């Protein structure tokens, strides 16, 4: 029994408390936050090292009565996702601090709570525990959404909160029904209990619907399009990178292991392909760059769940690779766009004046569209290959079509970027970069480099993803190591 899976939850929460208590001193907050996120990154790397080859680390809390214990489980999927989430959180925090965006003294503590909640959903082995961590993440995101205090944010937040609250209730409904049908909400126990009375099938369907809402799949994903464009610049990158990933990883963990019914997988596959195409197509419509990039993010969520929807080891492994590199890509594009101006002079102008930033945006857009030599190309290629191997040529064709549409949206976005800000009188003012602004853009550059590195050397990620997929798809391997 290892306590490593407790660290990603306890450290950010403790740091949040410290940062909230010490909010008189901004630098205390910043140091505490950076230290906590770095510590989580470190433990994530340790977890990756400890879970190679399909080892599953379990921590069981709650005493000796087997029914009341809660299992925290670190399997290869958890390790990968914890590490990449900590990485993007570090990037966002550095950018935030460099831009001085943490004037509101509660921003950093609530950000740490968001991190703790999302990491908690990645390491939990119990469905109700997952609900609790979902709620922690969501409540933190509600606060972060309105922290700027503008009316537009309040309006978007109203929609976001209502829809997500309804989604949480649906999730709870499903968990309750599942508990009544099976007698436990522990994922390992659910995996071993293979009897499927009708109540259980209904409960599983309800839970899958709730996950689809969290992951912002069509037709339940409208909230993303409303909320993300008005998210405060300080946290928009964090939202893009982490929030939909939480719902998607929940699907990866729960559906093949505990649900295992082909109906759920087919539904997820269909929803994923529809989302990918629909959102990418819709990205051709809006005029504002934040709206375009929001819809591109929504399309990525669709691609992410196609991996689990295919249901094979190849599919899940491809999906895990895609998820890991996509978190980096989504965060990178939001960070990079935050560093640009909002006039419409176009990418070529940007390339002349801010070449490194333009290259960053270019690489990230190429990765989101799924072209080599970036990691997006690897991810897409693996997904298409898995779809063909699983006997789903239609899905493969739709994936390629959707990638093309995302590329078109990326081109549109490129024309909307600029190094100049639009003044109210219609004139342009240069977004002159003092040293701090360059530091603020640096995390985006680092993330884009990571995309290139992964794209050129994907072997280790592929191997980790494959071992993760083998644990996820084989209840035997999981439960053998989790249940006593």
């Amino acid at each position, binding site marked *: 029994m290892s306590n490593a899976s407790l660290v990603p939850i306890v450290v950010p929460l403790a740091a949040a408390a410290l940062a909230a208590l010490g909010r008189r001193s901004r630098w205390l907050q910043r140091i505490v936050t950076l230290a906590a996120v770095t510590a989580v990154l470190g433990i994530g790397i340790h977890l990756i090292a400890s879970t190679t080859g399909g080892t599953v680390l379990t921590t069981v809390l709650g005493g000796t009565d087997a029914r*009341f214990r809660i299992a925290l489980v670190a399997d290869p999927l958890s390790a990968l996702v914890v590490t990449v989430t900590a990485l993007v959180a570090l990037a966002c925090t550095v950018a935030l601090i460099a831009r001085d965006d943490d004037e509101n003294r509660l921003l950093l503590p609530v950000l740490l709570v968001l991190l703790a909640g999302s990491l908690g959903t990645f390491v939990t082995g119990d469905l109700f525990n997952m609900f*609790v961590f979902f709620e922690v993440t969501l409540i933190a995101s509600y606060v972060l959404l*309105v922290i700027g205090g503008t*009316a537009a944010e309040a*309006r978007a937040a109203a929609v976001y909160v*209502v829809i997500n609250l309804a989604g*949480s209730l649906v999730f709870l*409904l499903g968990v309750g029904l599942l508990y009544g049908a099976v007698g436990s909400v522990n994922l390992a126990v659910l995996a071993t209990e293979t009897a499927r009375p009708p109540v259980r099938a209904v409960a599983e369907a309800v839970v899958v619907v709730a996950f689809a809402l969290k992951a912002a799949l069509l037709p339940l994903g409208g909230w993303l399009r409303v909320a993300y464009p008005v998210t405060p610049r300080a946290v928009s990158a964090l939202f893009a990178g982490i929030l939909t990933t939480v719902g998607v990883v929940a699907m990866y963990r729960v559906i093949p292991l505990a649900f295992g019914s082909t109906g759920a997988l087919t539904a997820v596959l269909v929803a994923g392909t529809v989302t990918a195409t629909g959102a990418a197509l819709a990205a051709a419509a809006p005029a504002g760059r934040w709206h375009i990039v929001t819809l591109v993010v929504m399309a990525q969520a669709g691609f992410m769940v196609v991996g689990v929807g295919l249901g094979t080891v190849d599919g899940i492994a491809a999906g895990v690779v895609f998820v890991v590199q996509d978190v980096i890509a989504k965060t990178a594009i939001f960070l990079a766009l935050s560093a640009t101006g909002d006039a419409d002079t176009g990418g070529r102008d940007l390339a002349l004046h801010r070449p490194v930033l333009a290259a960053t945006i270019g690489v990230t857009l190429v990765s989101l569209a799924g072209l080599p030599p970036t990691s997006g190309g690897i991810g897409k290629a693996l997904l298409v290959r898995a779809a063909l191997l699983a006997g789903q040529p239609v899905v493969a064709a739709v994936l390629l079509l959707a990638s093309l549409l995302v590329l078109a949206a990326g081109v549109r976005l490129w024309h909307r970027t600029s190094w100049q800000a639009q003044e109210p009188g219609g004139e342009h003012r240069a977004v002159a970069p003092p040293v701090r602004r360059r530091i603020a853009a640096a995390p985006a550059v680092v993330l884009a480099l990571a995309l290139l590195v992964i794209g050129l050397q994907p072997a280790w990620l592929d191997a980790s993803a494959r071992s993760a997929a083998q644990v996820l798809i084989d209840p035997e391997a999981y439960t053998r190591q989790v249940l006593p």
Partner: protein
Amino acid sequence: MSAAVAIGVLAAAGVYLLFLRGLVRAVIGLVLLQHAVNVLLVSIRTGARDTAPLAPYAAPPADALGQAFALTAIVIGLGTTVFLVALALRHAHHHHDDDVEGEP
């Protein structure tokens, strides 16, 4: 049986209110939905109907886990409802109305 009817009625009323215009009505609808889910959680019986889980046990105690779920859900629901009401209040200050629909 009565629990099932109660859940159904609460859920129906909650969903209806969610579709009306006005954030306050949506909040009330969500509260009713929360009640429905909590009644569901409390009425879970994974064994025979047993006595209340209060020590000392005269007979095998009922399953406390469903009730624990309901407690957690109530508290979480309370937090989010308070937040939503605060949002509605903030919106009402600006617009003298709680209608959040329509283009900004």
